[in-house]
């Protein structure tokens, strides 16, 4: 195996383990949780958000390092973030709302933090569906345009966190800061290229 291939393989393996580790950790700690439903809901939500930000970090990492292989873990990161988001969504509609469609709809309309959380989840759906090679080929240029939806999704996810916190905003602020850096980098690059 060539040295270059070995490095790509190591990157992929590390990212795969990194994506699975939070799920393992959540399951491992679950029996200790006093409020297991809350523990899982928060845990999956937090990791969905962290996964989204990690996905958004791929392009800056590639540009900074000049190593194109970073792109080869982007789909894995994005789909992992989506998997945590699905778990988060299922916990909400099932264990929080008891699968009552009317109650869920009322909650989404009435509570801004639920509204934006649900909006973020809905935005992620087409991205997950079109994440395959087949869809990439079929959509061509449109694929890139469609996947710009990850930006509003990440912004809404951060807002969701902000609006649900009772008092201490430290954690949501950290995620907002990370998102600002990741988006700011893109704006700055865009400005550089236009000049």
């Amino acid at each position, binding site marked *: 195996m060539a040295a270059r291939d070995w490095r790509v393989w190591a990157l992929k393996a590390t990212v795969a383990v990194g994506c699975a580790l939070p799920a393992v950790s959540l399951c491992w700690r679950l029996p*200790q949780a*006093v*409020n297991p439903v809350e523990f899982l809901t928060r*845990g999956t939500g*937090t*990791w969905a958000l962290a996964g989204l930000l990690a996905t958004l970090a791929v392009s800056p990492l590639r540009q900074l390092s000049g190593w194109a292989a970073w792109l080869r873990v982007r789909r894995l990161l994005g789909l992992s973030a989506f998997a945590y988001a699905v778990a988060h969504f299922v916990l909400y509609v099932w*264990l929080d709302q*008891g699968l009552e469609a009317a109650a869920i709809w009322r909650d989404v309309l009435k509570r801004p*933090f639920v509204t934006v959380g649900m909006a973020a989840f809905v935005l992620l759906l087409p991205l997950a569906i079109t994440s395959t090679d087949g869809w990439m080929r079929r959509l061509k240029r449109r694929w890139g345009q469609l996947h710009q939806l990850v930006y509003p999704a990440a912004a809404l996810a951060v807002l969701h966190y902000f609006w649900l916190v009772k*008092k201490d905003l430290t954690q949501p602020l950290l995620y907002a800061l990370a998102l600002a850096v990741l988006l700011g980098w893109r704006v700055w690059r865009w400005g550089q290229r236009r000049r």
Partner: protein
Amino acid sequence: MPLIHLPDPSAPLPSEITPPEVYRDRRRFMQAGLALATLPWLAESAQAGLAAQKSPLSTDEPLNKLSDITRYNNFYEFGVDKADPAVNVGSLRTSPWTVRVEGAVQSPRTFDLDALMKLAPMEERVYRLRCVEGWSMVIPWIGFPLAALLKQVLPTAAGKFVEFVTLHDPKQMPGQRQPVLEWPYREGLRIDEAMHPLTLLTFGLYGEVLPRQNGAPVRLVVPWKYGFKSIKSIVAIRLVEKAPLTSWMQANPREYGFFSNVNPEVDHPRWSQASERRIGEFLKRKTLMFNGYAEQVAGLYRGMDLRKFF
């Protein structure tokens, strides 16, 4: 919730903490205590027993486990995560401890904790606790009605409200180094609420003195109000003429009112209060008006618009 949370190796395992069945059965409790006496944590807690008469005001619902009650606490003086207090309370000294009772009273007095505890016979009151966040527990508190203390100091006609103040000492309460709330924590009741027989000045739970994360050495328990009204680690009780500004009202007056009675019909601006998750249960249950104490306390609010006075 912090992303990475390592278990505290010094914390007792849940299996080491007395389960309710054992607590219920005195004989088996003693045997278990004997068998486990080598564990320092249990040996320490065994010395802190607090005898009490059972109260007819108790609910007969199943109790939450002691290990749940002591590891899931909103006590921002020791950190904002509910797992923080159990880890961080080591720095709190609960002895010596005094409680100042002052303001619109004929005989203001500073009580030593020991003297305070002797004011009235201790009762065990099993109450539902409903947190404003939407979860609840059933807890066997030990204490006596706050009214017994207030009668000692003889409130005057100007004493229309009671203000309670928690200890303010960032050295003992590391959470106070962050301006999460305006310290010290302050709470308040109307005088008729304070004098109500359900309002408990609380010194213990599960047959022992209060664990520090549960508000040692003395706290308030007002079972028909959201949990944050039941102020912990009290150092001062003040009779005042006007409704005092509480810490949560100061932090967010739109979301937290002075009364904060449990009310399934009046939602928190950001979430529903119609249901709650009883810790230990899988699906949510309906929240009861005044947390199920409507029969005893609804009369206090007759004619009041509970949407306006939330």
